[in-house]
């Protein structure tokens, strides 16, 4: 446990060094909520509180992109020859991967905390139970996303492939989910695909925790089950692939 904590501490410290990336993500979330969200909610006619719905989705979406950043860091470390150093320290591969996945989740939470707090304050959510549930839902999701990112990074072992898959995932995973719009308004093929997307369940669970109209949301029990399966699958896969592909001290 202490060793996992050390990995988490190290990854949190490295996040603080990426100031410009952090500021840009904040700015991106603020522009999305403050301009795009406001503008699009003026033309949406089928939902009364679409703006709140959208803002909650942007928060989850931004946390997704912060969590996915762990995979890019793994590539940077490989390029700089840092992977061999990590493999030489007295940590098991399992501790390393779990620590990095947990750190990815915590980093996303820490990073978005000011925006989440500001948003909850604005919409009047002060109930500690609801706030706690929302945070657990978000953490569970970002923990799983970090695991996914690590799994892909060490599984693909090619920066180009990883880049293109992450680019496509980023483009499609967000739009094929209920992060931006409810499943009720999606054409059938898009709605079906969105049901296999963990971002759908994370966004809806976050909204449910914050008391949003349940008519437009996925069932919270289903969401919890899907998120648990998601985070377990990708963290176990991440550990297995990390151990298999990196053993012997070589990256490529």
């Amino acid at each position, binding site marked *: 446990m202490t060793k996992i904590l050390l990995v988490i501490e190290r990854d949190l410290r490295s996040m603080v060094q990426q100031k*410009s990336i952090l*500021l*840009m993500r904040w*700015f*991106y979330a603020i*522009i*999305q909520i403050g*301009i*795009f969200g*406001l*503008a*699009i909610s*003026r*033309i*949406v*006619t*089928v*939902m009364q509180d*679409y703006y709140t719905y959208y803002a909650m989705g942007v928060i989850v979406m931004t946390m997704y992109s912060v969590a996915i950043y762990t995979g890019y860091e793994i590539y940077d470390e490989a390029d700089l020859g840092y992977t061999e150093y990590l493999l030489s320290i007295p940590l098991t591969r399992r501790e390393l991967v779990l620590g990095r996945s947990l750190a990815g989740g915590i980093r996303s939470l820490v990073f978005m905390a000011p925006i989440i707090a500001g948003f909850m304050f604005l919409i009047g959510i002060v109930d500690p139970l609801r706030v706690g549930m929302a945070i657990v839902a978000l953490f569970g999701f970002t923990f799983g996303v970090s695991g996914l990112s690590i799994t892909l990074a060490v599984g693909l072992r090619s920066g*180009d492939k990883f*880049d*293109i898959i992450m*680019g*496509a995932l*980023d*483009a*499609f995973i*967000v*739009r*094929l989910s209920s992060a*931006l*719009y409810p499943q009720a*308004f*999606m*054409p059938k093929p*898009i709605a079906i695909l969105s049901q296999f997307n963990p971002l759908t369940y994370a966004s809806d669970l976050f909204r449910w925790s914050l008391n949003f109209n349940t008519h437009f949301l996925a069932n919270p029990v289903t969401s919890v089950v899907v998120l648990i399966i998601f985070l377990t699958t990708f963290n176990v896969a991440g550990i297995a692939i990390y151990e298999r592909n990196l053993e012997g001290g070589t990256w490529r």
Partner: protein
Amino acid sequence: MIHGVLAVLEHDLRVFFKYRFTLAGLISMNLADLLIMAVVYTRMVSFNYFQFLAPGVTATGLFAAAFLIGREVNMETRRGYNEYLLSLPLRRSELVLGRVTAGGLRGIIYATPLLILAMLILKFPTPAQFGLMLFAMYLLSMGISGLAISLAVALRSFERFTTARSLLYLLLIFCSTVFYPLAVLREILPGSLILFAQLNPLSAVADLIRGYLIGVPPVTTQSWTELLAFSGIFIMAGAGLYRVAIERSVQ
């Protein structure tokens, strides 16, 4: 003169196609916006959002592809590649003109299929209208390339350059009529940002394409004037700054 410019142009176009992974990501983003997001929003808003967004996606794709040249110039400046460029048997003016022209062409090459997609969705224009749309896109693309080159040489640090690029990207894309009509922006933005959105060249090109393909908003002399002014200023600024910076970078 022409020979030198063409050589630079050829070099930059070859480099452009090496960015296949960046381009694939960009295409995914543009197509996902149009074929998924716009399709869903069409069911949620009171007008055909899919048709509204098709020209907007063309403008954003053009912007992103034209801006790529800034990344290259910034990298060349930091890695000392400018010494090699200056040692080539080319005049400075050929190098500068070649780069800005190539930046513009790269934008057009990327965005023309998106324009054709918009035409398939909306309607086929007359050959003259098609030519005018391509010309407007080329002007915007050259202006954006000039802007990207200006930033790349002014902010030599990669971190500062990428931060500035992202800020600019967000402001130009979201404070424009790419995703929503100007009337909606008037309801939510303060006066200064409305002015910015009106003068934004992305708004000008998106609305020009809409004007030629669906007739709304109508194409006006003002749209063309704004586009010409933006492009003129940034092409000259980019070319001038690049010319000065490339020489200073090796001193």
